[in-house]
């Protein structure tokens, strides 16, 4: 997460190379984490239903970097990147995927329900758009108490087709709560491409906000600097009491919808082209002109962190079965 100093380093419309390198480290950490998840799933070690954010690392990283620790987020089924970017150590996320007490949800949540209230992660949601109204409520609480905080909902293009999305944005704008709606538009809802699920051209999805008169900010979701600056501007707008903002990030899902998805529905050439031209990590690496050795150092650190996370997770504690109902009621 970007600190206040780092933000100062953004100097208006540009971000310092140091900050960008920090982003690079985080994005690579996310990538290595997601790859490890795919690997461990194939090895049969991970139970449940998993969705990785390979290709969408810049969106999570850039948005969360623009937030303060007191700001809160709600995530989706594709939750790992958001959780890492908001500041939960990867070992606690990995432990959660292994269903361990050391997990960020104590093994009760799983991949689609990563929580870490201490760092402002109010939880990931396995119901598409299910977390959005809660974010309006969190923002309302901040507004009512006069706290300079924002609440951020992450969601995808598919989520904009839900009534929940509509009611939430509508109410947020009506009450001008300090919320940011971060739309990661990867042009897919599972196997359903944009043209089969969106009545608008895929690149024009920010038009959703016109129905509420809500401010929108657009950014290339593969460009972490652009994402970061967009989120920073959105945060400032929201926290200043000017109302919520829809941040439209055009991004690309460079893997299947879920881990194990054979993607029979997807054109293989197009996917290859996307992987070659739209990888946010490759794009940033090229821009930073990282030397081989610098890259290797960063990569080794990320890989080591992820490997350690797996070890931590595997050495974790299985929750005692009789504790299954421990948290049903307060």
């Amino acid at each position: 997460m970007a600190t206040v100093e780092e933000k100062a380093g953004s100097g208006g419309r540009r971000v310092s190379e140091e900050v960008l390198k920090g982003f690079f480290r985080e994005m690579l950490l996310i990538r290595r984490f997601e790859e490890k998840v795919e690997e461990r799933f194939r090895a049969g070690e991970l139970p449940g239903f998993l969705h990785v954010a390979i290709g969408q690392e810049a969106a999570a990283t850039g948005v969360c970097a623009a937030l303060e620790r007191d700001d809160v987020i709600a995530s989706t089924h594709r939750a790992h990147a958001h959780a890492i970017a908001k500041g939960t150590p990867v070992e606690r996320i990995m432990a959660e995927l292994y269903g361990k007490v050391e997990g960020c949800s104590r093994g009760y949540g799983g991949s689609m329900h990563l929580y870490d209230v201490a760092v402002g992660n109010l939880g990931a949601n396995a119901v598409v758009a299910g977390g959005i109204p809660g974010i309006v409520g969190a923002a309302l609480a901040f507004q009512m108490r006069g706290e300079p905080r924002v609440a951020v909902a992450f969601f995808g293009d598919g989520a904009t087709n839900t009534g929940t999305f509509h009611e939430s944005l509508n109410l947020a704008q009506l009450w001008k709560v300090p919320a940011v709606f971060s739309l990661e538009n990867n042009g897919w809802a599972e196997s359903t491409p944009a043209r089969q699920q969106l009545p608008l051209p895929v690149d024009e999805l920010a038009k959703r906000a016109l129905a509420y008169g809500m401010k929108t900010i657009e950014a290339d979701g593969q460009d972490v600097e652009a994402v970061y600056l967009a989120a920073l501007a959105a945060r400032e707008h929201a926290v200043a009491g000017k109302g919520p903002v829809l941040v439209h990030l055009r991004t690309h899902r460079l893997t299947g919808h879920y881990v194990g998805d054979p993607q029979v529905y997807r054109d293989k050439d197009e996917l290859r082209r996307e992987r070659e031209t739209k990888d946010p990590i490759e794009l940033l690496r090229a821009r930073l002109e990282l030397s081989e050795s610098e890259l290797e150092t960063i990569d080794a650190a990320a890989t080591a962190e992820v490997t350690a996370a797996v070890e931590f997770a595997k050495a974790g504690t299985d929750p005692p079965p009789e504790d299954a109902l421990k948290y049903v009621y307060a």
Partner: protein
Amino acid sequence: MPEVTYREAVRDALTHALRTDERVFLMGEDIGEMGGSMGVTQGLLDEFGPKRIRNTPISEMAIVGTGIGSAMQGMRPVVEIMYEDFLTLSMEQLVNQAAKHRTMSGGQVSVPLTIRTQGGAGWSPGAQHAQQLEAWFVHVPGLKVVFASTPADVRGLLWASIQDENPVLFFEHRTLYPIKGEVPDELEPIPLGRARIHREGEDVTVVATGRLVHEALEAAEAAEQEGISVEVVDPRTLQPLDEETILESVRKTTRCVTAHEAVTRGGFGAELAAVVQHGAFDWLDAPIERVGAKFGPLPFAPALEQWVVPHAADVLDAVRRTVARA
């Protein structure tokens, strides 16, 4: 002990909560200037202002969800869903979110949210403004469910619900708003999970909720004339359920009738019957009779409506049937 209406009792609990706890606020459709479609929130806007008495758009999903999010951030929202038929629009947030956040987070978050709603037949509302849907929520772990039948209960239970750390579905019955009853001078919370014995009796226990508590009491009076002594128990909170009080009563009377306005099939009476037959098997002298609405959407014409929903006479018939088995 002052006498107040059920409507005033609800308002009293809300007023008390708003006065004593600044985290409390109200959201709902037309609860401001209009004072709610049932007049429950009249005057609250004047005393507490539009920040705490919030008129909302017609967005049942979003207002429940906003309640959830603000509750997770330390507020104590009380959301009003105008008719319980419209709970159908917020089921996702109630069932998948409010009820599950605590478990899914491994205990990190609580959702101290109260959802007030009302419904019920008796005024020819037609099929979409009269359902009694409390049974659904009893099937959802993580929620508490309250259904109060008297001014004193509705006041004390609402105050307890607002203070509860869990999401509470709070059912009021449309036709009860004007009824009067005594309430304690001081507003004390009534702990959730305790049934109330309205009337002691020896021969049959009627476990009734909502409007049917009053029908059951009327039936009990009539039964008395016939020499049948009826005990009337109102669980008041359906979740958690005070099984012990109910079972003790049935073990004493050896017969049981359940009564609610919701359709019988799949209703809360089914759960009661299942619990009672299990816990009082060796005591029961007759099958448990269930009283509820007949199995159809509520038709509009008054004569049809009256035929569908249960009344004191139906409770009395059921009481007689159980006694006839002896």
